[in-house]
C-alpha cells in the first residue's frame, strides 16, 4: 500500500471514531438536557400561597402566623371577586333573569375553575385534590387562561376535524355584572396567589397526597432504594461465589463452557419474561409472599442482574496476575485462602464495577417488577414491611403515571421529577463506581 493511501485511511478511521464518539455524546445531551431542564421544575418553581397552605396543613412545615397574614392579604382581593361570581350565579339561577339559559352552564364551569385556581374557600371538599387551589404558578396561569377564554369547537366544516376556538369570556359576559370580573382576575392573579420562588427539596422525601396531585415521591424513592438494596443482598453473594467457582475451582471442560453459554443467554432474556417467571415461581409456587412484595421483586431483579455480576466478577478474577496466585500458593496458602486474601482483593475494582452497573440496572428495570413488586400508590415502607408489602418504585411509576393517571397533564412536573431523580440516581451510582474503582486501583498499584 502506498504511503499516501495509508495516511488517508488512517485519517478517515480517526475521523470516523471521533464522529461516533461525538454522536454518542450529542445524543446523550439531546436526551438528558430536556429531562434535567424539566425535571428540575419539580424541585425549584414558583410556589403559590396555596402551596404554602398545603405544606403547613399536610406536612406541618412553615409558620402559622405568617400563613395567616398571607391569607388575610389574599382575602382582600379574593372576596370581592368571589362575591361578584356568587351574585351573578344567584342571578342566573333565577329563571326570570334575561340571560339565564345562556349563562347557566358556563357559570357552573366558571365556579369550578375559580375554586380550582384559588382553593375551595369556605367549603370542605371530600376529595383531597379539591381542597387546594393551584400550588404552582405555572399551573395557576394555565387555569387563568381557561377562565379568561372559553374553549369552543367548530365542527362546521363537514368531513374535517373540529377546530378549537378560544373565545374571550369578557366578550361573552359583556353587559352583565360579571364583565369586570375577568380583567380583575388577570390583573390581580399574583396578588391572589402570591407566587414566590420555592426550593422544594422535600419532593424527594414527601409521600404523595391524592395520587401525586400534591406532595413528593418519597414512597417511590424509598421503594426503589429497597428494591436495589435487597436485590444486591441476593445477587452479590450468589454472583461472586459463582464467578469464583467458574474462574478458579471448576474443571474447565465442556460443562463449564455450557454453563457460561447459559449465563450469557440468561442476560439476553427479555426482562418481562423474568417478571412473569418471578410471578409464577416466587409468588405462585414458592409463595415468598401472599401477593406482590418488594421481596419477590428483589428476588426477580436479582435473577436479572446475576449474569452481569457473574460475568464482570469472573473477568475481574481472571485478570488477576497469575503471579499473585502462584506466590500465595507457594507460601502454603490453601486455594480457598488464596482466593479470599489475594485474588478477591485484587479483583475488587472489577467486581465493584459489575455490582454498580447492576445497581443502576436494578433501579431502572420496569418489566420485572410489574407483576412482582410495584403498585401505583402506596405509603413509604419500613424494612420489615418490604418482606410482605408491595411498594411504588420510580421506574414503574414513571410508566404508570403516563399511562394510567387520570390527570397526567396537571402533574407533568411530578413525572419529570421522577425521571430526573431516576436518571440522577443512576448517574451518581456510576460516578461513585468510577471513583471507588480508581481509588482501589490506586491503592493496589502502590
Amino acid at each position, binding site marked *: 500500500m502506498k504511503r499516501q493511501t495509508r495516511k488517508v485511511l488512517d485519517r478517515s478511521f480517526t475521523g470516523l471514531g471521533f464522529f461516533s464518539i461525538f454522536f454518542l455524546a450529542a445524543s446523550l445531551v439531546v436526551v438528558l438536557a430536556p429531562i434535567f431542564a424539566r425535571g428540575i421544575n419539580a424541585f425549584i418553581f414558583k410556589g403559590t400561597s396555596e402551596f404554602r397552605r398545603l405544606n403547613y396543613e399536610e406536612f406541618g412545615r412553615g409558620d402559622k402566623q405568617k400563613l395567616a397574614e398571607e391569607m388575610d392579604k389574599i382575602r382582600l382581593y379574593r372576596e370581592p371577586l368571589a362575591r361578584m361570581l356568587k351574585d351573578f350565579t344567584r342571578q342566573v339561577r333565577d329563571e326570570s333573569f334575561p340571560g339565564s339559559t345562556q349563562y347557566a352552564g358556563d357559570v357552573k364551569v366558571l365556579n369550578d375553575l375559580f375554586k380550582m385556581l384559588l382553593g375551595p374557600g369556605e367549603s370542605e371538599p371530600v376529595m383531597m385534590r379539591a381542597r387546594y387551589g393551584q400550588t404552582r404558578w405555572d399551573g395557576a396561569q394555565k387555569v387563568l387562561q381557561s377562565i379568561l377564554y372559553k374553549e369552543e369547537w367548530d365542527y362546521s366544516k363537514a368531513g374535517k376535524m373540529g377546530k378549537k376556538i378560544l373565545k374571550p369570556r369578557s366578550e361573552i359576559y359583556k353587559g352583565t355584572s360579571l364583565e369586570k370580573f375577568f380583567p380583575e382576575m388577570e390583573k390581580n392573579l399574583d396578588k391572589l396567589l402570591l407566587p414566590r420562588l420555592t426550593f422544594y427539596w422535600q419532593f424527594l422525601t414527601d409521600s404523595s397526597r391524592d395520587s401525586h396531585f400534591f406532595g413528593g415521591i418519597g414512597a417511590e424513592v424509598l421503594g426503589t432504594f429497597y428494591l436495589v438494596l435487597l436485590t444486591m443482598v441476593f445477587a452479590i453473594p450468589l454472583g461472586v461465589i459463582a464467578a469464583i467457582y467458574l474462574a478458579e475451582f471448576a474443571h*474447565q471442560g465442556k460443562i463449564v463452557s455450557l454453563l457460561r453459554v447459559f449465563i450469557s443467554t440468561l442476560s439476553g432474556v427479555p426482562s418481562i419474561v423474568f417478571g412473569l417467571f418471578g410471578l409464577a415461581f416466587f409468588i405462585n409456587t414458592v409463595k415468598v409472599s401472599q401477593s406482590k412484595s418488594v421481596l419477590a421483586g428483589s428476588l426477580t431483579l436479582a435473577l436479572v442482574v446475576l449474569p452481569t455480576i457473574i460475568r464482570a466478577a469472573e473477568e475481574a478474577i481472571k485478570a488477576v496476575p497469575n503471579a*499473585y496466585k502462584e*506466590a500465595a*500458593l*507457594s*507460601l*502454603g*496458602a490453601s486455594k480457598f*485462602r488464596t482466593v479470599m486474601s*489475594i485474588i478477591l482483593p485484587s479483583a475488587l475494582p472489577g467486581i465493584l464495577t459489575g455490582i454498580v452497573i447492576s445497581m443502576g440496572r436494578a433501579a431502572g428495570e420496569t418489566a420485572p417488577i410489574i407483576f412482582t413488586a410495584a403498585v401505583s400508590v402506596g405509603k413509604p415502607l419500613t424494612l420489615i414491611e418490604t418482606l410482605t408489602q408491595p411498594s411504588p418504585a420510580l421506574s414503574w411509576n414513571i410508566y404508570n403515571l403516563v399511562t394510567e393517571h387520570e390527570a397526567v397533564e396537571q402533574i407533568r412536573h411530578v413525572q419529570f421529577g421522577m425521571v430526573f431523580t431516576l436518571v440522577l440516581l443512576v448517574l451518581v451510582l456510576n460516578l461513585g463506581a468510577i471513583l471507588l474503582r480508581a481509588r482501589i486501583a490506586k491503592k493496589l498499584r502502590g
Partner: protein
Amino acid sequence: MMRIKNIGKKRNAERVEPDQVGDGVHIYSRDFSVFYQHVEAVKKVKLDIPRGQVTAIIGPSGCGKSTFLRALNRMNDLIPGCTTKGRLLFENEDIYGPFVDPVLLRKRIGMVFQKPNPFPKSIFDNVAFGPRLNRFLSKNELYAVVEKSLKDAALWDEVKDRLHANALGLSGGQQQRLCIARVLAVDPEILLMDEPTSALDPRATSKIEELIRQLRGRYTIIIVTHNMQQAARVSDLTAFFYEGELIEFSPTEQLFTKPREKKTEEYITGRFG
C-alpha cells in the same frame, strides 16, 4: 515455633527404606519424569540434593530445569495435563504420594520466582502473609517474625521506616528480596529459586547473590539460573540439564573446570545454548 514434621497425612504413605537414601540427602529423585500431556519435559532424572548446600541447575532454555524445580513443591499441579512418573522423595517421603497435602508441602519447600511478585499490599502484610496463614500470632510476635525475616533477607534497613507502604513501590531488587523475606517468614527447609535475578540489574543481582551465600547452611537452596557465572559464584554443586535429561551433576568447581561430559563442556564454553 512448631514445625510440621510430616508432609500431610502419613497414613499408608509410600516410604523408602532409610538405607536407600544416603545421609544428608534432602531431595532424592530416581527415574523422575514430568510430562506435559504426552511430552516428556523432564526425563528420568536421578539426583541427590544435599542438605544445607546451594545447588545450581543450569542448562539452555527449554531444557526442563524450571519444570524440575517447580515439580519439587508441586507448583506444576496448577498446570492442567501435567503428570509425573518415578520417585521424588523429600525427607524419605514421596512428594507425589497419594496422601501428601501440597499445601503443607509448600510450607516446607518455599519458592522464589523469576519476576518479583509481591502482593499489592503493604511490605508488612507481604511478609506476614505466610505466618498469618495457620498460626495465630500476637501483634508483637508477628512483628518479631517480620523483622527477623526482613533482616535475614537483608532488607530491614531499607524498609524499616515504611513497613506499611505498598510493596509495589519498592525497586525491582528490593521487591525480590521482599519475596525472599516472605518465603523465609514461613520458615521453610528448602528454598527453590527460579532464575531469581534474571529481571534485575547487576547491583541488585549481586545483593541477591550475597544473600544466597548468607543463607547457605541454614536452608537447602536450589537455584535455577541462566547465568553460568552466577552458578559458579553462589553454588556448591551444579547440575546440568539438557533436553530434559540430567547430563552431569558435580561439585561446581569441578563442573566448570573439568567437566566429565562432552555436552557439559560444549555448553559451558558457549558452543550452544
